[in-house]
């Protein structure tokens, strides 16, 4: 599905971002536009500024110049946990699960930002808390079904394979009920089969849960297969934007990857 970028309001935008560490320009006048319903990949050689851009979008870095606009509001100065609360979720390289808890429990922790009752209520486990827990348990089960984790529901996550832990991690991110999902190298460290599974889940997140996705990924095959839009960075600048086919044919991109000046 190609996103009709010209008619849809963007959900997340970076406008002229500049990020400088001392004398190093990590990002220079970087702009990207993510529209609803798309998978937007950010690629580029090592050191091109991909992770810096992701960190600016999710709030871990604050760019010195430019704006990050989410649903029309500038969130440049908003802290990461606030961004998560308004619907900007992110997964990290590697795994951020609680190894001692089960897959189901890990996914349940993702709802923490939506829980309204406090410690005192929880101690009594009465009325409101109980109802709330039932609602979230049902939602967690939906995610378990969505990610096909049924047989691992009660398995302790620490004992699972890398690919499965990554899937649980993804489940926790979905539990945040995000409006947009930012993924940092989701395919890293996976075998081809796990990559295939995860690629399908990413497509399903876009199609079934209507969550647009921004991802940084090194595996070009995956990027070209699943992305609707690809932004290419090199030395902190955007050198190309377009569909996978357009980007693949772009001479500047070929030069950046092959190291031709």
């Amino acid at each position, binding site marked *: 599905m190609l996103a009709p970028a010209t008619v849809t309001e963007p959900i997340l935008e970076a406008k002229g971002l500049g990020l400088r560490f001392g004398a190093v320009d990590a990002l220079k006048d970087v702009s990207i536009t993510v529209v609803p319903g798309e998978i937007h990949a950010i690629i580029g050689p090592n050191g091109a500024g991909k992770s810096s851009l992701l960190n600016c979008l999710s709030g871990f870095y604050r760019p010195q110049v430019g704006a990050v606009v989410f649903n029309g509001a500038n969130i440049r100065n908003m802290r990461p946990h606030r961004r998560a609360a308004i619907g900007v979720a992110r997964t990290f390289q590697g795994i951020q699960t609680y190894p001692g808890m089960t897959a189901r429990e890990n996914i349940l922790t993702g709802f923490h930002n939506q829980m309204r009752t406090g410690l005192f209520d929880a101690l009594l486990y009465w009325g409101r808390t109980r109802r709330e827990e039932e609602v979230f348990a049902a939602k967690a*089960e939906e995610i378990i079904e969505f990610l096909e984790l049924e047989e691992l529901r009660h398995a302790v996550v620490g004992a699972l394979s890398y690919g499965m832990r990554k899937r649980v991690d993804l489940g926790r991110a979905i539990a945040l009920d995000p409006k947009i999902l930012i993924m940092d190298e989701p395919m890293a460290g996976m075998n081809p089969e796990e990559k295939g599974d995860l690629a399908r889940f990413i497509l399903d997140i876009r*199609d079934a849960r209507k969550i647009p996705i921004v991802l940084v990924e090194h595996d070009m095959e995956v990027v070209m297969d699943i992305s609707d839009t690809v932004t290419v960075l090199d030395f902190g600048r955007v050198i190309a934007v377009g569909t996978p086919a357009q980007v693949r044919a772009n001479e500047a991109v070929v030069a950046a990857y092959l190291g031709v000046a």
Partner: protein
Amino acid sequence: MSTQVYRAMPVDDARTSRGRTLPQIFRDRARENGDDVAIRSKRFGVWRGRTWAEVNASVRRYALGLAAAGIERGDVVAIIAENCEEQFILQLAALCVGARTVCAYPDSIADEIGFLLDHAEAAIAVAQDQEQIDKVLSLASRLPKLRRTFYIEPRGLWHYDSSLLAPLTALEKQPDEADERWLDAAIDAAAQSDIAVYCYTSGTTGRPKGAMLSHAFILDNAYRLMGTLAVEPGARYLSYISPAWAAEQFYGFGLALLAPMLVHYAEKPETVQSDLREVGPEFLMFTPRQWEMLASGIDARMMDADRFRWALYAWALRVGSERLASKGQSVARFLHPLADLLVLRGVRNLLGLSRARAVLSGGSGLSAELFNRFHAFGVPLGNLYGSTEMGLVSAHRRGVTDSGTMGALMPSDPTIAGPMEAWIDPRGQLRLRLPAFSGYLKNDAATAELGTREHGYETGDAVRVDHRGQLVFLDRLKDMRKLASGQSYPPQFIENHLRASSMIRDAIVIGDEGHAFVTALINVDSEIAGRFAELHGLAYGTFTELSQLPAIRAEVSRAVDQVNGLLDRGARIRSFATLPKELDADEAELTRSRKLRRELIHERYADLIESLYRGDPHCDTTIQVKYQDGSVNTMRTQVAINRLEHA
């Protein structure tokens, strides 16, 4: 010579079909048991039950939807899904409007599903998910009869654009009063002899054949199960074997309506093990392969256990086995309660079989070792013998189980037929007189090959009936071998049973039209025999000496005697010799996968075989031994010929 005809022992169970079709019985369920839970499925981690009344409402909506989609009496609805409540409901819906259903194995490749849809002339296909839909769509151009395809799970199908395709929910139609009257009339119009289901038999050669099963046939088989296993109303059943297999049509469908049973559907095939534990079914049926997987699951867990636990487990299993072997006469009977409390009960719990009343293994033979292991655990496992065409023929009744037999003839629904009759024809083949299937779809020639009810259907199976009336499956008739006298015997059966003895590693059964009787070459198990010799203080130097020790030969003789007990007189082993050298793949006597190279063994031991038939007391044998460095040594030795007194 008059043949003895065996007749099934009838049971007194009033839950007969009394001329009703499957939908008519279902409608009665909804009226009489409306508030009882009929089926239970696990979705989103929770078991959700639906009453007969609720299921009935669904069935009627789908039935009217099918009618609205143009399905008429005699049309075919194909279902390609795992065991799930949608399958149960759709099948009933199709039968309500007089249509027939055919189920495909979800793991079939597209080409196989294409053959089935084409051959059955399916008008509507219902597929579980994207995977199955892809198969059907890839074939659509070859299937002119296929009008529409419905899917149960929409996942991944969001962007599919095909006029053929719709979600299953689109098929439901809210009935008005006229609809209700029309549907009841449609249900009333059907007869028990109408065809309800096609089951495609897995042909080992050529394309599968579509066996046609009538309502009466399915219900009679349901009764056969109910009578044999004494299935109580409301019994919990886990549906796991595929509805593409006739056995599940009898059990999970026919009997579910007739008994009625409370049928459970697992969340996914992958979760069956844990779902089994949650359901604690009283009745279920697995294939031997599935029982093997359950057993190896236990083995795998025990490998992780520490030494103390492992020893405790081994002890309890031994106590369980000994109690069975001695029929409660040994000390094991005093130790058993403790073993049960400490270990066996836990194992049953882990397997999800702690409430099992009678569970079956069907499809092919389950090894005696595994059968006995489950019994040592305390699982009431029984064997089942039958075929798609004849239905279920014999099974172990509750409390009467034996790894060596397939149970006794099953009782028929008296409102459908009298007790089934069985006899062994002169070729050693099991012949049956019972209500069978309604023939193969568009293949009268194959149907005719099975014979007729009057003269007894030909099963193609060599079967023996023991003194208790239990059926012993020997071999497929075509695999039987004949002796000079014309007497036939089952070489595979004998070899398999000989191998089951711990002392015997391999056995080669000899005897064909040039021989008067059956003999055997035995390769004793060097490890077990060695330990046995040590235990009894017997000295030996080489395998050759070990194999010829009188005590070892006496042990083998005992094992052969036991196997002989399973055979008719003329088919018994009269003499055997223990091989002076182990069969070895390096010497081409075995394949790398340990299959016997018979011709070569016959050639190499020609002298020995001759002695077996001549009745010599022993045979001077010369054998060549090849060493790993390539050198060859000739070994001369004397091999004893052992005769069996009772054979």
